[in-house]
């Protein structure tokens, strides 16, 4: 039976059954700011088969952009190093790891405070960690001066799925089937 022979409701069921999906990706790139866009593209490509919503794509892209930017401009500053981006999808949990071998963070707690930046002269807002925190479900930062920084972020996929899918005017989310029972 072809896909378009299903009623809308059944088609939705099918896309739910397509999960779970497990996948892994690992990439390394030079610490130049052009590569922030590359990291964003890679991570959106990685989650694409999982059928993410626009919001999920934007949230994850933003968080990755922040983490990779930090690695490049704070971790390595003017020096050239390698940034490692790792993505894992286990069932519906996305785990993103961004690792650098740069100078590390002296005071992680302080660095994570909103508006805190060591680069005031460069018009940095000091909101990188805040956005990672807001857009992902969990954020873990491991760092020590001279030992680089590892940022691990997780996000459960599919939570915001329903309110975006039912563009037919039904904005109810949890527990209600968008096409009625």
């Amino acid at each position: 039976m072809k896909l378009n022979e299903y009623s809308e409701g059944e088609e939705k069921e099918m896309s739910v059954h397509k999960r779970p999906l497990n996948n892994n990706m690992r990439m390394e790139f030079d610490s130049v700011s052009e590569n922030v866009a590359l990291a964003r593209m890679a991570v959106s490509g990685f989650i694409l088969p999982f059928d993410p919503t626009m919001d999920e794509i934007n949230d994850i892209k933003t968080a990755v952009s922040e983490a990779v930017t930090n690695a490049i401009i704070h971790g390595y500053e003017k020096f050239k190093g390698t940034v490692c981006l790792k993505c894992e999808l286990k069932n519906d949990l996305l785990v993103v790891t961004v690792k650098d071998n740069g100078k590390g963070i002296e005071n992680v707690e302080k660095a994570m405070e909103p508006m805190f930046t060591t680069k005031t002269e460069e018009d940095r807002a000091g909101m990188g960690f805040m956005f990672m925190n807001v857009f992902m479900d969990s954020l873990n930062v491991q760092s020590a001066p001279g030992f680089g920084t590892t940022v691990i972020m997780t996000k459960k996929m599919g939570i915001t799925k329903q309110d975006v899918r039912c563009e037919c005017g039904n904005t109810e989310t949890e527990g209600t089937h968008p096409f009625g029972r």
Partner: protein
Amino acid sequence: MDFLYEVKGDTLTIYAPKEIDHYVASEIIEYSEVLMAKNNIKNMIIDFEETEFMDSSGIGIVIGRYKIITKLGGKLSLRKMKRNIERMFEISGVKKLLGEK
């Protein structure tokens, strides 16, 4: 240069690019400073019609420009933001700072 601009009297309009990250942010900041000095700019409009993605580098641009423009006694306005861009300005408190609804 990856963005367009327009000077009308003492107002500079910057048409922000499709994606705003650290890479393009430093360009926008640099060029807008040159343009402001050259044209006696007092007010600034940043137009986000083309912008589909922005990270905190964009917030940095806006806060930085806001400080400069208010010092000059002018006004900074943001326009045509998509929903995800607007959300970034809301979360960061920039919307409140600029006194926008």
